[in-house]
């Protein structure tokens, strides 16, 4: 009796989880599949996951005046070459790397000393300051986007890397996360460093930083994913200069550049943009989960 009940329970748990996994994975499945197929296969919804990979003719190549024999290729090759040829995808990705990495580094430079002060130093008003940090967590970005934009416009920084980076340099989430982690670092360790002759500044960078690597990694993934994928803010501040576009924004320009039914190259471009994040996440997965569970955030 009991065995049957537990079997049913397991079955139920697993079916819910599998259903959830399908919902999450289906868009990625379609993205990958479309990036492999020829336009006609996408339209008629045939060819399974990979498509038949029959040699097809590149219609644009023909329009451009080339002989038809020179414009024959497999759909997968066509999709991915088109993705890189039709838009400066590499440039967009380099922009993305530069912006996300800069944001993360500055966030760490700001958040670590703040978190250290909020967790380990005693000063008047500390609890009030921490209350403010928590309060700032509640403010959605969109609520302050307009004032931020106006400020940046007034100082003439729109359409620049600075506009993409500066608004994100102070991460209250980062301060909060690191503060929670630092609370678990024993005070004795800091006192020992003080006895050894370290200044408060060196304690932050030579003692706290190395012990906080798992938490930093967790924060790093949150930060990099959020800003790599961010569409809203770059759309607001990058209005003219296509050279400054980040991948999601580039993707949009990409779409309007293309004919409406060129899903193949577009999905190929999307795959290329998503891939770095997936790879980083898989590499850091174990320590990432360590980092979140350790700080008690799930």
């Amino acid at each position: 009796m009991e065995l049957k009940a537990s079997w049913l329970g397991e079955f139920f748990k697993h079916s819910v989880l599998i259903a959830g996994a399908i919902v999450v994975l289906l868009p990625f499945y379609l993205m990958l599949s479309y990036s492999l197929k020829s336009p006609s296969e996408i339209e008629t919804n045939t060819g399974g996951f990979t498509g038949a990979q029959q040699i097809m003719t590149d219609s644009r190549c023909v329009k451009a005046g080339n002989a038809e024999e020179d414009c024959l290729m497999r759909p997968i090759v066509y999709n991915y070459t088109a993705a890189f040829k039709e838009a400066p995808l590499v440039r967009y990705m380099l922009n993305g790397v530069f912006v996300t990495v800069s944001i993360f580094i500055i966030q760490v430079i700001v958040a670590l000393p703040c978190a250290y002060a909020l967790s380990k130093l005693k000063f008047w008003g500390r609890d009030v300051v921490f209350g403010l940090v928590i309060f700032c967590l509640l403010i959605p970005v969109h609520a302050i986007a307009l004032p931020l934009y106006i400020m940046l416009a007034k100082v003439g920084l729109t359409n620049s890397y600075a506009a993409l980076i500066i608004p994100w340099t102070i991460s209250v989430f980062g301060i909060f996360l690191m503060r929670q982690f630092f609370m678990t670092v024993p005070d004795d360790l800091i006192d020992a460093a003080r006895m050894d002759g370290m200044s408060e500044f060196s304690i932050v960078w030579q003692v706290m930083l190395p012990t906080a690597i798992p938490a930093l990694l967790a924060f790093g993934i949150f930060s990099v994913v959020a800003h790599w994928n961010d569409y809203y803010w770059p759309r607001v501040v990058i209005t003219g200069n296509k050279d400054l576009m980040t991948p999601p924004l580039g993707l949009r320009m990409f779409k309007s550049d293309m004919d409406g039914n060129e899903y193949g190259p577009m999905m190929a471009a999307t795959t290329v943009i998503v891939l770095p994040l997936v790879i980083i996440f898989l590499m850091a997965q174990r320590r990432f989960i360590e980092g979140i569970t350790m700080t008690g955030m799930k």
Partner: protein
Amino acid sequence: MAGITLQGVTKAYGSQSVLNDINLDIADGEFLTLVGPSGCGKSTTLRIIAGLETQSTGDVFIDGSIVNETRPSKRDLAMVFQSYALYPHLTVHQNLITPLKLRDLTALERVPLFGHLMPERGKKMSIISSEVQKVAEILKIEPLLDRKPGQLSGGQRQRVALGRAMVRNPAAFLMDEPLSNLDASLRVHMRAELSELHRELKATFIYVTHDQAEALTMSDRIAVMMDGDLLQLGPPDEVYEDPTDIRVAEFIGSPKMNILPAICDEKGSINCLGQKIKVALKDKTKQSLSIGIRPEHLVLQSGAKSSFSGLLTYKENLGSDVFLHLDIGLETQKVVIRTDPQDANSAKIGDKISFGASPNKYLVFDANGKRIDARGRGNS
């Protein structure tokens, strides 16, 4: 090497007072133990000496000069923490050289990569390395130098923490319950090693513990603290034999000293549990008293007069000694007697046991717990 003096040191957090007027004179090369129950202020005292905390009033002197405003690292003291507080991301070797690098290298020489170009750095580093090597040899931790603290056992970490203090060759060692994270047998072993180390280094040791046995075994002098007061300061024997306060009497010694209620009448005769005690007081006024007797000073008596009696409730056999726990009809207080196993053989649980003590072993305390000068008359 230096003596350390505390003069009228107090510490208060807001209206809560943690230390009341601590005066302490620690001689050069002395092993002084601050002992007391948790929350008595002993760790705070140590941290004030270290400079990790500032006193509310009073002065701290090291080697005769006042250090109230001096940063912890400039006081030339080394501290060993209960949790060892080793840098978890550095190897044992790096843990040991860190305090020396911070002390001996200039800021420029410590800069990564660039620092290596400074002319003096190589010479200084080789001196530092030989210092570390010397300490590692003394503590027998050479095979561990390349490991990280996470890969060490409790005892090994303890040694590394000691080593990190020793490399600096400081004026004094401050130790904050360094043995309490070790298991019982290792703790006893390390007690002996610490005493030996103290003899070898001839340095000043200030040692904080809540374990009265550690205090008694290792120290030159013990300072017993309670509720922020320094109750008694003296050599272990003196504190044990001659406690000036009932709290000291109860805290030092295991098992605890027996405390019996007594009453003194106007003539100065003392009545304790219905028995007259042959102890003379100078001050012959009517007052209630407490009589303290160590378990080893109580002897079994076979029904003689002027002896106490109680029902045996528990026999604690330690092999070499037997502790007899007696119910003497008081709710709050049981009496413990230390006897030889042979003497205790015949006693059965539930038996009525008679016992007494030589009057000169009685310690008399007044109603406030202060010791009263009293003389026992003869033997009973």
